[in-house]
């Protein structure tokens, strides 16, 4: 009795000693459940964007000693993702981080996963609140829209008027529609953007061929366009390539939007395009921490406003209740310039 009491006091003392540096420092590794298995499900398995996110996820997993596996469906549909969700639940994964192809269709499968004790975070593209514990948002919709509008203003010149065309991905893409809506809202509300006149929005379906045809049609129907805004990493390349391929357009039409620095470097350096994006590896990194926090019960579910999520070397994030339930935001985006573009490896 005595000995065990002594031991428990000692253990308590040690625990307190350990706990003090834990709560203040970044080396938070020991408090996570050992052997967590996390499944990262992307929208579609063939684009580098998700590979770069995966590199961040792997890094985070090394730090907290979990394993993460990448699952990319062959086609960008909800049905393909549901199959993957059911499969990973059966295989005994503790956490799912998913970039959703559909807001509602995935909810039943994800609900079932949570019922079985699997922690679910959506990242990159959100699902309805009932289908996830938390959404790791790369940047607020308004923040992304502002970055793109600022870029347009820098091309047109402050206070100048100019026609702008938008080349989006699919007509029902959640993120793109939210960004486009936010841009429209800010153009109306903010005098700084009042010169921007959006004349048309076209959809390239994230397919190079279709995006090129649509860019062509956009400029044929609206020859006054000075800036093309492409809030998609596929469309922006097609638009930039179309402008590069036409002497007549060089310097007259500038492309901007969201793009990966490695694939946009050439166009950014020759002045054809500008581009902005959040740090892609970081969003994978942050999502692993979020899903591990919930799976290890370090954050209680349902997540309340003000709950703190550890973020490894990125620092912690406080949850808040967004339009669609609890979320955390990664942080401001990065605007790529001819000077800095080569320093990003994603």
């Amino acid at each position, binding site marked *: 009795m005595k000995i065990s009491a002594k031991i428990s006091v000692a253990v308590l003392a040690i625990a307190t000693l350990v706990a003090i540096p834990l709560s203040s420092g970044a080396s938070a590794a020991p408090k996570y459940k050992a052997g967590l298995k996390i499944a990262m499900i992307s929208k579609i398995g063939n684009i580098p964007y998700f590979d770069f996110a995966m590199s961040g996820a792997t890094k985070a997993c090394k730090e907290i000693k979990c394993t993460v596996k990448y699952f*990319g469906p062959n086609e960008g549909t909800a049905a393909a993702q549901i199959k993957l969700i059911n499969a990973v639940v059966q295989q005994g994964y503790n956490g799912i981080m998913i970039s959703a192809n559909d807001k509602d269709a995935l909810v039943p499968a994800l609900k079932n996963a949570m019922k079985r004790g699997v922690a679910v975070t959506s990242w990159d593209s959100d699902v309805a609140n009932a289908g996830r514990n938390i959404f790791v948002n790369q940047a607020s919709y308004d923040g992304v829209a502002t970055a793109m509008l600022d870029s347009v203003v820098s091309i047109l010149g402050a206070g100048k008027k100019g026609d702008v065309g938008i080349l989006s991905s699919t007509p029902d893409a959640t993120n793109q529609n939210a960004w486009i809506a936010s841009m429209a809202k800010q153009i109306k509300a903010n005098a700084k953007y009042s010169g921007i006149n959006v004349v048309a929005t076209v959809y390239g379906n994230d397919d190079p*061929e279709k995006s090129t045809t649509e860019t*062509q049609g956009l400029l044929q129907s609206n020859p006054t366009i000075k800036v093309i805004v492409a809030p998609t990493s596929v469309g922006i390349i*097609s638009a930039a390539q179309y402008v590069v391929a036409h002497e007549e357009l060089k310097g007259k039409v500038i492309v901007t939007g969201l793009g990966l620095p490695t*694939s946009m470097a*050439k166009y950014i350096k020759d002045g054809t395009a500008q581009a902005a994006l959040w740090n892609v590896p970081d969003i994978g990194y942050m999502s692993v921490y979020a899903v591990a926090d919930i799976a290890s019960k370090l954050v209680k579910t349902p997540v309340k406003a003000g709950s703190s999520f550890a973020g490894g070397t990125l620092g912690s994030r406080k949850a808040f209740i967004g339009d669609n339930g609890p979320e955390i935001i990664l942080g401001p985006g990065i605007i790529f310039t001819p000077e800095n573009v080569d320093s990003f490896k994603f």
Partner: protein
Amino acid sequence: MIQKIAAFQTTNFKINAKTLLRRRESGILMVLVLVSVATTLINPRFISGYGLSDLLLNTSMVGCLAVGLTPVVIARHIDLSIASATGFSAFLTAHIIVGHGWGVVPAFFVGACVGAIIGAVNGVLVAGLRLPSLVVTLGALYIIRGIDYQFANNKQFTAEKLPTDLMHLSQDKIYGVPYLFCLVLLLALFGVWWMRFTRFGRDLYAIGSNPPAADIVGIKVFSRTFFAFVWCGTLAGIAGVMYLSIYAIVDSAAFLNQELIVVTAVVIGGVNIFGGLGTIVGALLGAVLLRVLIGALVALGVAQFWQQAINGLLLLIAIGIDRILSRRSETKIERIRDERKMEIS
């Protein structure tokens, strides 16, 4: 009977104002002019400036593939793996030339070889083992795309890495005609010679008109059919390199699900889906018409759903016209046959 049909077709090739007007190709050409003029009246930029060369550049890939697919369809076969072969050739070519630092000519050589190998495998299965081409190439469609996914493994090649010469190739033109479209014209010219003036090509028409009869009269069905698939694969490979040149980006989803666009172009161009009828020129015109129509609808700002619906409608009209024409030529053949019978008796 085959020879009679062939004879009927050769007589039909004689240049004659009346038959020229009645030919299927002239019909497509007229629709083409009509669509272009109408669109240009509404939006002059459709043709002026760089509009026309853009249209031709857009047509290059589907045109190349239509020229490739035509001999296969004429032999009463189909190649559904054509778009997968194009996509795979695009990625593999990019991978190889970027790795070795090669330029334009080796790129086309590599692409053509990749395509030819795929075509040869299809050819052996269809012509050698006599398996139905629909099933064989449907399987190939998935297998090739699957290999592409595994091989590409989320990677992509963009303008940053691809050779600059190859990118420039799609921008260069002679008198406003892009080099790539000139390449398609050269390939089509070879195809026309092959299909119209060689025994080899005429045999394909015979095989497509009546496969058992072609066997009985001793036509080399295996080598003819096999080579048609190799030709189709090779052109798919070349189209893959064009994809790299035009879009300056390639991943494993390149040209995904585009096989039916090619089939549509070929059928609109008057090639009978049941074999035995049609020309390479017609298929090429079909591809141009299809792309001009897509371009016109985009230039006029028509919504996406209608663009696809109109393509479908065009296909149905084309098949309808085919039916009417083939019924007319059937009655004509019967009349000739009856006349001959009377002569003999």
